[in-house]
């Protein structure tokens, strides 16, 4: 039976991809000379991402990640 922490793998991959693309965007932006508005947009992106991830981490702190992902125990006592 798959444990619940399995769903963290695709999440980490996608979230990592988003953050990497954000980093590449930031490098591209400053390669061509960023000004205050570029700094503001960059700050909003990273601050927003940090806030979203912080709240997710806060909410998911009490989860039992070792529990099974799909609980089939409801079928074990079925009788016909």
């Amino acid at each position, binding site marked *: 039976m798959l444990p619940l922490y399995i769903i963290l793998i695709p999440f980490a991959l996608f979230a990592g991809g*988003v953050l990497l*693309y954000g980093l590449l*965007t930031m490098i*591209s932006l400053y390669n061509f000379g960023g000004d205050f508005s570029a700094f503001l947009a*960059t700050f909003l*992106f990273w601050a927003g991402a940090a806030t979203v991830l912080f709240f997710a981490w806060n909410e998911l702190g009490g989860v039992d990640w070792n529990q099974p992902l799909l609980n089939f125990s409801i079928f074990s006592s079925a009788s016909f």
Partner: protein
Amino acid sequence: MHFPFLIKIHGGEMEKPAIFMRKHPLILFGQSLLYLALLTGPYIAYLVLRDVAVEWLNHPTLGPAVLLLVTLYDLFVLLLFYAAYMDWYLDIWVVTNERIVDVNQHGVFGREIAELQLSKVQDVASEQKGVFATIFHYGLIRVQSAGEKAQFEFAGIPYPHDIARKILELVQADQKWHREALAQEIKGTQ
């Protein structure tokens, strides 16, 4: 902002940027409002479908999965906003004393630079259409050329009529310089 595409022109001196343009900030503001609305989507859905949402979130396995999905969605919308900002910031028009340079950013890894010599400009038109365009003074500039690319267009430009007039003045000054240079050359060969 620095312009790596400037070149040396007649007499060995560097061409000088005379006009530098980006799309009106209102264009970016409108897109930002859209992304803000998308960002608040899951939270509005939670308020509207409160009973179902609470049941799902209290489930031991479905709850964490839904939270992770919403987190990914928010990150993706933030990235779309940042990419839209980069596209607005790096799409520029520079008019120098020699050329019009149109720089178009395509994503993170794509950048297209098209140029038009002022001596090949045949016509410059400007257009301001719509309520917001009239109130906030932005519009379209169209430059007709005799070059390979027949028409250059830049939409969402602030004060398009003033910019069109300045471009025409630069075109006239450049064409006058070329006529005088040609006359000097002919005089020199005689």
